[in-house]
């Protein structure tokens, strides 16, 4: 009897003491989610509140979903705070130039192609310009939000004064009433510099968040009180607190960490990245200004974007646009976190604005317009050099 008891005890203790049976934490550089380092206890609490509102708050018809919608929660489109897939891709339509969108009465700019039971979703009007837009990653948005307008304008080169074939212009957008211009904001014809979204048509994280609640989930707020189905003002379906918590969450999500930054291939690829002038638009280094969140204040970070619009050529011209952007112009997407994209895209890549590229190399080949020179230089590289450049990009 005693030997059996001893055996059971031994087995139990062995099992309980074996930490290998408990799944470990993935390496920090393998994750896109998580807060920036250095938040205070209060800020961590607020981050967690935002995390819940962003990832766990599932909207139902009873809590305001729709009636027309694209997704049922924020997290549905940004799994693990990473990029989305064609399943979570949204469609915007109607606007073809900087004079505005003349199809608002037909549900523009965003198509709500899903509806709660009993309702009919929107359909694209015939023969209309539209773009499919795959959700971007959320990481590091707080850093991008704190780049000064002056720094963005310093990277612009509207008339290609330096003759490198790359211009770069801001998207000048009109602000909704609830968005307050940031300190030092530059104004041009009553318009401000947008920086978020594929066309840089969102000004800041509040603008992006309130708009996404409304356009993506069909949720009204005091910021965006118009129901997308009724097209009339209705009661708020989400509290200001929840919206602001999500804004804080997005603001304080950490920047992606580069993996194996000192590996020889990665270092060589980084050299090639500059050499073939990818960095003319995908600017490696930016700086934040002052912030109430000390951890974000006056930081140097490495997003590989200039937050400006660039003509990407006819192959990427859908005919649709936003703000003052031309239809062929797209904001330079940050490349940080690029190598982790498959972790949120079901194990594969869906790159470019609509997810049409199935690999990084395919995405490079789709670059045209101002990026045509860099694309041709990439094509001219030897196979081993291409591999090094791809190793660098996958390390981001």
């Amino acid at each position: 009897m005693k030997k059996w008891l001893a055996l059971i005890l031994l087995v139990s203790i062995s099992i309980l003491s074996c930490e290998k049976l408990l799944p470990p934490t993935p390496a920090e550089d393998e994750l896109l989610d998580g807060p920036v380092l250095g938040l205070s206890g209060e800020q961590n609490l607020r981050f967690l509140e935002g995390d819940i509102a962003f990832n766990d708050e599932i909207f139902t018809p009873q809590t305001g979903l729709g009636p027309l919608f694209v997704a049922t929660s924020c997290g549905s489109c940004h799994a693990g705070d990473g990029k989305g897939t064609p399943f979570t891709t949204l469609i915007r339509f109607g606007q073809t130039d900087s004079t505005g969108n003349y199809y608002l009465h037909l549900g523009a700019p965003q198509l709500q192609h899903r509806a709660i039971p009993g309702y009919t979703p929107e359909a694209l009007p015939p023969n209309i310009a539209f773009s499919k837009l795959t959700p971007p990653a959320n990481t590091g948005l707080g850093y991008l939000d704190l780049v000064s307008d002056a720094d963005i304008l310093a990277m612009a080169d509207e008339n290609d004064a330096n003759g490198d074939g790359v211009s770069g212009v801001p998207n000048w957008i009109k602000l909704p009433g609830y968005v307050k211009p940031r300190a030092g904001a530059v104004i041009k014809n009553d318009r401000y510099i947008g920086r978020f979204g594929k066309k840089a048509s969102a000004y800041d994280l509040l603008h992006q968040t309130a708009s996404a609640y409304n356009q993506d989930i069909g949720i009204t707020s005091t910021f965006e009180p118009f129901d997308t189905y009724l097209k009339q003002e209705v009661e708020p379906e989400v509290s200001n607190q929840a919206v602001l918590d999500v804004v804080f969450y997005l603001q304080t999500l950490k920047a992606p960490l580069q993996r194996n930054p000192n590996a020889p291939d990665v270092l060589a690829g980084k050299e090639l990245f500059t050499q073939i002038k990818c960095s003319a638009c995908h600017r490696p280094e930016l700086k934040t200004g002052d912030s109430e969140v000390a951890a974000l204040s006056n930081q140097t970070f490495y997003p590989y974007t200039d937050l400006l619009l660039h003509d990407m050529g006819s192959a990427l011209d859908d005919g649709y646009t936003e703000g003052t952007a031309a239809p062929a112009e797209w904001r330079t997407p940050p490349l940080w976190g690029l190598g982790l994209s498959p972790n949120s895209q079901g194990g594969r890549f869906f790159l470019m604005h609509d997810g049409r590229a199935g690999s990084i190399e395919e995405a490079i080949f789709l670059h045209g317009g101002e990026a045509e020179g860099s694309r041709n230089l990439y094509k001219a590289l030897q196979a081993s050099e291409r591999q090094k450049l791809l190793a660098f990009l996958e390390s981001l």
Partner: protein
Amino acid sequence: MNKYVCAIICCFIFSAQTAITQNDSTAWLQRVAADTSKPQLNMDAVYNRPFLQAGKMPVALGGYVESKGEYLQTDGISEGWQFQMQRMTLFVSSSLHHRIKFLSELEFEEGTKEINIEFASLDFQITPLFNFRSGIVMNPIGAFNQNHDGPKWEFNDRPLSSTQLLPATFSNVGLGIWGKIARQDWVFAYEAYLTNGFDQQIIENNENKTFLPATKNNPGRFEENFNGVPLFTGKIAVRQRKWFEIGLSTMQGIYNKFEEDGLRLDKKRAVRVWAVDFNLSLPKTKTSVNGEWAWVSVDVPDTYSQQFGEQQQGGFLDVVQPVLKRKMLGFDNAVLNLACRIEYVDWNVGNFKETGINIGDHLLAIVPAVSFRPSAQTVLRLNYRRRHQTDLLGNPPALTGGFQFGVASYF
């Protein structure tokens, strides 16, 4: 509310007193032995429980309690040690006539977070092959929903396919017929009920998926059928007395509000469930194998989201091997078991329309276990749980692992 509290307190006091007196052979309370003379199937589980009866009173009482402590970790993140009072269940049965019986099951889950009448029905026997049942009946889908008492199982958690795919324990108000017939070593049985059914919460819920258990959140389901269409539940089962039992069951109904005040709102949308269950005993090695697999089909509107699956499936397989049966720790006929459960649930079977890529949203778990039964009615369980859960998009799975220790016992 107060009357419920009084009733609960009375039941508690009475239960406590019976627990004190049941070991006294001279006490007027007697343990009612399980009737083993008749063929027992999963459908007999509601009656095949230990009861205490006072003298010749027609009312018998029983119940069970189930609790656990666990330490689980998902991708390195743990909520620490958690202790849960999973459920305490009280049974009351009464034989009004030798062919008219009443049985009820009142369950308190996670403290008093959920209080449910899981079963409360009156059985009228016309012949053994034809019984009429009315009241709150347990829809006989699969085997676990009928045979779910904690002390019967070697695992601390109920099978995921029973609680996360099927809505066990699922009971509804309704009526129906059941019966069985024995021929030599074989027993054949059937059940057929019409009850209140599902509601739209199965596709409008906080789980962000088609989730049949969400219908249990409807507080009015015991007093009003959501759409007026009865849910049909039927089961046929066959048992070979020494070796095995196989059951085939189905639920068929409408889950949406298609009409209100005479106005047409939508077409009727069906929910269909099929399940096959089996259990097998190997007399030579005393090994028991128990399994269940279910398929769910829900008519989700095309204009809703593929987030909500039209097809689902899942099941579990338990293997239990007694390794020691003898007097242990002063308990005569104590048994030590090794066991293992494999379970799988796919909430969204199919491919994305946009890409043709397989939709994820599935879960695989394996649960090795050691259980100690000091008596047949009490079990102490130590489980290790390993779970791989994949999200809708098929991203790398979230890995959960950890240990659970718990007890379950009839009283």
